[in-house]
């Protein structure tokens, strides 16, 4: 494990015991994520991409193998609040304002009042929602709510950001815009990002590393290191280089699927 390795999985497996027998959600996962990486997990439903993200976050416990986050076990990392987690739905509390929602983890972690205010202002500016701190969630659009939930995950000092299909429920145009913003935010904050998606263009556009997964059992089919530069305007998606990576991702997905398709 090198200095720069933030997350490392070794022979990781997770089997759920269900009434219909065991389900192999993850099998023999080996992966290293380096500091500052933007790693996307892509694959069909049931391939274990969300489960893997939840294992990193200690929301699921692997049945075999090991995982380290910042050199600690996933549990220790969670106790140390090593990461911010963004779910598919914004999950903002309707009885709290946007500012109040972002303060929630800060209150739980015991930040001082002054620091809470300072941090709320800072992260709202990062997600371009300055001036919305006194609005209630229902006064914001879906895309804005999701940006607020990203702001909430950025508010405390976690250098890892785990995102589980955060833009899955949003329309394409909003999604493009948020993807662009996310890249800018990643560049500014230098966080390590784990990102689950089932959109090939989204994965290729955002990532430095794309992990293609396949189902039954959930395995890694391919790991693609992106050759795209870190600076990525939206129209990079029309370049041959982009299309080539997208093609490789598609091949990986098809291969993993076997005869199922």
């Amino acid at each position, binding site marked *: 494990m090198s200095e720069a390795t933030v997350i490392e999985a070794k022979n990781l497996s997770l089997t759920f015991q269900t009434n219909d027998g065991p389900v192999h959600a993850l099998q023999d996962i080996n992966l290293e994520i380096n500091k500052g990486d933007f790693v996307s997990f892509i694959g069909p439903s049931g391939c274990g991409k969300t489960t893997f993200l*939840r294992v990193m*976050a*200690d*929301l699921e416990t692997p049945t075999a193998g090991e995982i380290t986050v910042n050199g600690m076990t996933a549990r220790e990392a*969670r*106790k140390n*609040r090593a*990461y*911010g*987690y963004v*779910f*598919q*739905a914004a*999950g903002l*509390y*309707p*009885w*709290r*304002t946007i500012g109040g929602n972002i303060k*929630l*983890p800060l*209150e*739980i*972690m015991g930040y001082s009042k002054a620091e809470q205010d300072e941090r709320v202002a800072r992260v709202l500016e990062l997600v371009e929602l300055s001036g919305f701190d006194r609005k*209630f969630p*229902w006064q914001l659009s879906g895309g804005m709510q999701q940006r607020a939930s990203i702001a909430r995950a950025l508010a405390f000092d976690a250098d890892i950001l785990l995102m589980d299909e955060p833009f899955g429920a949003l329309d394409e145009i909003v999604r493009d815009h948020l993807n662009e913003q996310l890249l800018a935010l990643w560049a500014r904050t230098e966080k390590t990002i784990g990102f689950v998606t089932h959109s090939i263009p989204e994965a290729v556009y955002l990532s430095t590393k794309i992990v293609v997964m396949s189902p039954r059992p959930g395995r890694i089919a391919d790991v693609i290191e992106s050759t795209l530069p870190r600076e990525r305007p939206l129209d990079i998606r029309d370049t041959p280089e982009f299309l080539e990576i997208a093609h490789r991702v598609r091949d990986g997905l098809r291969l993993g699927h076997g005869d199922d398709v």
Partner: protein
Amino acid sequence: MMSSAGFISRFAPVLTIIAIIIAVWYASAVALNAPWAQDKAKRAGVTLSFSELVSDTWAQEKPKLPAPHQVATEIYNTTVMKKITSKRSLIWHGWITLSATLLGFALGTGLGILLAVGIVHSRAMDLSVMPWVIASQTIPILAVAPMIIVVLNAVGISGLLPKAMISMYLSFFPVVVGMVKGLRSPSAMQLDQMRTWSTPKSTVFWKLRLPSAMPYLFTSLKIGMAASLVGAIVGELPTGAVAGLGARLLAGSYYGQTIQIWSALISAAILAAVLVALIGLIQRITLQRMGMLR
């Protein structure tokens, strides 16, 4: 400010229903009280015209069904025209019932919330307490009430507390059921979210579970308040008809004072409506301040 058109559109349906009820009530009074009026007329050897019959059925001393204005007059005479301290004042009786209702409601709400918190946080309590909570409500309160009164009397507790216990017995149930549902209403995602911040259980309760449960709590409180009033009235029946709206009901039925029974009934209904409306108001204010109303 509400415009006059808004006022009309809001209250017109209610007023229409009230008008219909009163019309049906008057008609029923004629039908039910007519035999007695005819009987009297026959013994006196006179025949009644229709208008005489109607006016007689609406003015009898012990009618089978008193007319609305008779009940209204009785309520007016026993509230406005009597001193509040008089034992014939409906306000005095109402206050006796109200105090037991409010005490029982407060105890029931407290007990309900405590049980719900226990049930949500402890699997053992969920399995052991919940069936008893449900079983408790399958026992007819009319059977339990006299026993509670007698048993508590035997250990020297009488007056307000036994009645409040019966109110509590009826009102804790909707609070338990509503609060258990409310405290469990946060989604798996919201609970996972709390886990990613390694939030202590108590903080999850105060910051997530309790606020999520507020809408459920208020709905339960409304049902609980109405049940509480019923409990207090039922609790007054076996006390030997000393005081309270229940006592007025019982005394009225002993002496065939139907007007008194109906005025006590209507007073109890008005009291319940006011209490439930009051909770509705508190609900509006609370949820508005929490930003949960738009």
